[in-house]
């Protein structure tokens, strides 16, 4: 007996309807339908060993003889939470399609479940239909390196072969990069299957080189550093003999050489410096030439001009000494070799130091988990994290990293989120809570459903935001930028003027003095130090912020934050937790019920109410371990309260009006209630069987560290204002607790921005701290908008700065980071300005008339090389910045 490769039926080869030979094997078919299908695409049926084909498991591809219909779950990207209009559009598009039996769209999980007839349609068609409706199917894209592929015709074969694998949506092979790019549904095929298809054609696969962007830059830096160091060593070694011949009067044996020997040695030096010019300093000349073609000039131009002029003059001087006046025909090849050696060394050190400035981002990228344990079709699979799809269920064990963002389905644990939020204590998580990718699961095991993968995860967004911000411009850099735009041509003109002045008015030999000073001017000027001053500090400062859970969107935000004089804090959710909690329980004196019983009864009544205050009471009862019985005859009286029967007793909860309505004698409870209200709490009277039983108060409580953070803001000389839509009494109660200077109460949400504007009109730089959704206009209005991020939602549009950890301490740290970074930038800028403003005139010989001192071009080269290294090193000092509220 053999198996029909199409339907899987066991048949006798003798009685088979037809047979086909394909790739050296003979296949038998039960029916015309099967053989026709095979003929259309033989390869898809013989990809796997016919003996091992698991027909039941291939339901997704549709060839199950027992089940006519197949079902597939496809992740759909771009569905809104409510599902409209996406769900309807996709349904319409699919229903028009032949062979579709049923479409169910689950917008919460972002998935489409499609039941279809595999005889009539295929997964690829379904995916295309969804794409046509304007939505994308969540597929993975993977690059696979193919070793030694050179023949263009093989490309076609491999592409076709890959395309026939079920679940592959598209494949293309690039012969230039020797890589295949494959788009596929990771639910249906695996990487190893893709690799196998390529290897089937006799090629070896490898990890694609474009898959390691993080290391790539580092590798490029390393390569550049090594190449610069090689250049440096060659220039240094050659500098030694060249220096000896340049100062013959100081060197014992050479001192006694005759003029002829010395002249011969100078020719030697001329030849020796050629490799220095070509190899060690070649990039200055090519760079200068390339810039020249763009009618621009940069540091390369200066170095190339300086060393080039020195070499040309020296060579002319030793070959035809007659054309120059007596005593000026001495070469200075030493300038060529030594200056190139020093500047190249400076560049190498700069690259090293620069690498350290982006350490923060490297650390962030390194947090990403490599693999995820996904449960598909009831099986646990360890797959690379790139293959995880939205709606996948992922198992996480204690001590493991959470691979992507999601929501816990079952289980609970404590999660260490310190790497992202700076929050040092582990956060407890239970079913329904959000987990963030790259955080560390501590104690328990749980399963969660992926909600964000790839570039949508919180970590990926953080990395992107930080990178963008690091490369943005601070307004303070504008001046430096404008200056460096004119800098190099100005220096060139100054060099020309220097030469002319020395030639016309200088002491003899004028030609040598003129040339040496002009070359010194070209070499000492350092546009790089100016250009590097801001970006390097910005890199470190913004990275430092990210390490402490503060995402600064741009250099501009960072610069503005240093000058903040007033901080406006939204009350709900910013100063307070934003969720009411049960705070007080008062039992009436004459009552026999205990506090616990009072709460139990009240919570029972509220258990079917949907009011947020009711939730707080129920939650409070549950945390005290009370079990609630079911209320009967529940009635909500708008503007008054609620009433119900619990365990045979009539229990009423509500305000004063409610109690009056029931004719309840309150006694001293009324004054107690006023006291609670004055503290900003919401008191509710409880009556049992029309007898006053007590008061239950709930309040939105203050976050533990709000008071401390506000105190530090005061110490920093910053006025703290609270803004809220709440009534003045509640607002002032909270303000007293945390020590806020000014309270703006009863402000309608739409008026918050206006109030921020009024504060700005007082002439102060105002920062607004809010939640990013309701406060968006106020955040945008403020000079700096700080949004408190919650969970995985970090890219808040309206904000300049996002505080990942929901604490006000972040505001303090943000201002501290800003102040420290700006101080560093100013040091760099001032240093670079002073260096150039002093260095250039000294090189021109400004000191010569007074002290007779002239700067040697060698010293100019050393000064130039180390000025930019100093700037980068100073920026690196910021790495040791520690915020007042240390994260770890």
């Amino acid at each position, binding site marked *: 007996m053999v198996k029909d490769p199409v339907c899987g039926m066991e048949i006798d080869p003798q009685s088979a309807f037809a047979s086909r030979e394909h790739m050296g094997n003979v296949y038998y078919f039960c029916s015309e339908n099967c053989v026709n299908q095979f003929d259309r695409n033989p390869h898809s049926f013989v990809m796997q060993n016919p003996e091992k084909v698991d027909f039941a498991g291939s339901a997704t591809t549709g060839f199950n003889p027992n089940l006519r219909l197949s079902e597939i779950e496809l992740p759909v990207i771009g569905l809104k939470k409510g599902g409209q209009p996406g769900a309807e559009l996709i349904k319409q598009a699919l229903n028009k399609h032949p062979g579709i039996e049923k479409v169910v769209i689950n917008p919460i999980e972002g998935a489409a479940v499609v039941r279809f007839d595999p005889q009539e349609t295929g997964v690829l068609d379904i995916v295309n239909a969804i794409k046509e409706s304007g939505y994308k199917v969540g597929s993975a894209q993977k690059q696979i390196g193919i070793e030694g592929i050179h023949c263009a015709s093989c490309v076609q074969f491999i592409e076709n072969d890959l395309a026939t694998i079920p679940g592959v949506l598209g494949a293309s092979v690039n012969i230039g990069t020797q890589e295949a790019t494959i788009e596929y549904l990771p639910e249906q095929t695996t990487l190893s299957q893709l690799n196998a298809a390529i290897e089937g054609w006799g090629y070896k696969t490898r990890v694609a080189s*474009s898959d390691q*962007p993080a290391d*790539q*830059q580092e590798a*490029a*830096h390393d*390569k*550049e550093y090594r*190449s610069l160091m090689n250049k440096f060593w060659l220039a240094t070694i050659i500098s030694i003999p060249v220096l000896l011949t340049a100062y013959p009067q100081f060197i014992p044996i050479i001192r006694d050489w005759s003029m002829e020997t010395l002249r011969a040695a100078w020719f030697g030096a001329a030849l020796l410096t050629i490799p220095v010019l070509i190899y060690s300093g070649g*990039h200055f000349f*090519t*760079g*200068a*030439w*390339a*810039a020249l*073609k*763009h*009618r*621009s*000039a*940069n*540091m*390369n131009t200066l170095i190339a001009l300086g060393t080039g002029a020195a070499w040309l003059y020296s060579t002319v001087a030793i070959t035809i000494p007659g054309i120059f006046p007596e005593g000026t025909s001495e070469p200075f090849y030493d300038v060529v070799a030594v200056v190139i050696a020093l500047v190249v060394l400076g*560049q190498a050190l*700069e*690259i090293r130091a*620069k690498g350290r400035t982006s350490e923060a981002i490297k650390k962030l990228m390194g947090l990403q988990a490599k693999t995820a344990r996904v449960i598909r079709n009831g099986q646990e699979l360890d797959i690379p994290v790139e293959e995880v799809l939205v709606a996948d269920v992922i198992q996480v064990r204690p001590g493991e990293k959470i691979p992507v963002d999601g929501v816990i389905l079952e289980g609970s644990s404590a999660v260490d989120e310190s790497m992202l939020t700076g929050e040092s204590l582990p956060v407890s998580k239970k079913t329904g809570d959000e987990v963030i990718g790259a955080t560390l699961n501590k104690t328990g095991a749980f399963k969660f459903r992926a909600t964000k993968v790839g570039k949508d995860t919180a970590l990926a967004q953080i990395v992107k935001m930080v*990178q*963008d911000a690091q*490369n*943005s*411009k601070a307004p303070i850099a504008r001046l*430096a*930028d404008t200056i*460096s*735009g*004119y800098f*190099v*041509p100005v220096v*060139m*003109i100054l060099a*020309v*003027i220097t*030469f*002319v002045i020395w*030639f*016309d008015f200088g002491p003899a030999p004028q030609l040598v003095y003129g040339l040496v000073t002009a070359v010194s001017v070209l070499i000492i000027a350092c*546009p*790089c130090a100016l*250009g*590097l001053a801001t*970006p390097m500090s910005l890199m470190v400062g913004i990275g430092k912020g990210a390490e402490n859970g503060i995402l600064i969107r*741009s250099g501009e935000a960072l610069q503005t934050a240093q000058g903040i004089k007033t901080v406006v804090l939204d009350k709900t959710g910013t100063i307070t937790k934003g969720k009411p909690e049960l705070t007080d329980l008062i039992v009436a004196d004459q009552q026999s019920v205990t506090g616990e019983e009072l709460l139990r009864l009240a919570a029972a009544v509220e258990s079917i109410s949907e009011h947020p205050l009711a939730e707080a009471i129920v939650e409070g009862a549950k945390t005290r371990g009370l079990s609630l019985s079911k209320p009967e005859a529940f009635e909500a009286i708008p503007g008054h309260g609620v009433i119900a029967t619990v365990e045979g007793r009539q229990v009423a909860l509500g305000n004063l009006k409610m109690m009056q309505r029931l004719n309840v004698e309150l006694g001293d409870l009324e004054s107690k209630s006023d006291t609670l209200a004055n503290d900003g709490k919401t008191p509710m009277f409880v009556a049992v069987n029309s007898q006053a039983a007590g008061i239950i108060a709930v309040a939105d409580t203050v976050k533990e560290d709000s008071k401390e953070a506000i105190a530090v803001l005061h110490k920093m000389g910053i006025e703290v204002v609270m803004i809220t839509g709440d009534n003045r009494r509640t607002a002032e109660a909270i303000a007293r607790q945390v020590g806020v200077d000014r309270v703006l109460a009863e402000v309608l949400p739409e008026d918050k921005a206006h109030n921020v504007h009024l504060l700005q009109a007082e002439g102060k730089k105002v920062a607004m701290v809010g939640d990013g959704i309701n406060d968006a206009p106020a955040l945008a209005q403020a000079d700096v908008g700080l949004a408190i991020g919650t969970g995985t939602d970090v890219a808040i549009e309206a904000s300049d700065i996002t505080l990942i950890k929901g604490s006000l301490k972040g505001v303090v740290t943000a201002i501290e980071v800003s102040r420290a970074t700006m101080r560093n930038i100013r040091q760099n800028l001032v240093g670079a300005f002073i260096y150039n403003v002093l260095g250039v005139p000294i090189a021109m010989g400004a000191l010569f008339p007074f002290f007779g001192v002239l700067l040697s071009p060698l010293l100019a080269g050393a000064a130039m090389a180390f000025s930019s290294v100093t700037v980068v090193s100073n920026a690196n000092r910021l790495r040791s910045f520690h915020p007042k509220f240390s994260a770890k």
Partner: protein
Amino acid sequence: MTPIQIVVTLVGIALSIFIAWFFWLAPKGQTRISAGVSGVQEVAITVKGGYTPDIIVVKAGQPLRMRFTRQESAGCSETVLFPDFNQSAKLPEGEEVLVEFTPEKAGEYGFQCQMGMLRGKLIVE
């Protein structure tokens, strides 16, 4: 002054004027980009000692796609910045990198490397 000093002085002055003219005053070539069939304005830019082309004229309101290819290893040019658009891109040597955005407002916007050694200009009309 000797005649040779006068010659040197005159040559020096002429050279200074030439430098100022060459780098600042002379008109630079502009590259005008027009949108293709897809409605995207597309331009390939080579990065080697400078941006080629370095002055790019585009239309406002149409998406712009710039394909940067860096053909040098000098560390300076490894990042290209469009500060006015808050865009930046790392340019690994020899690899084509796309920078895409839609310039909405007419005006002149500079783009440059991180240190400002290489500069280009985007003119939006």
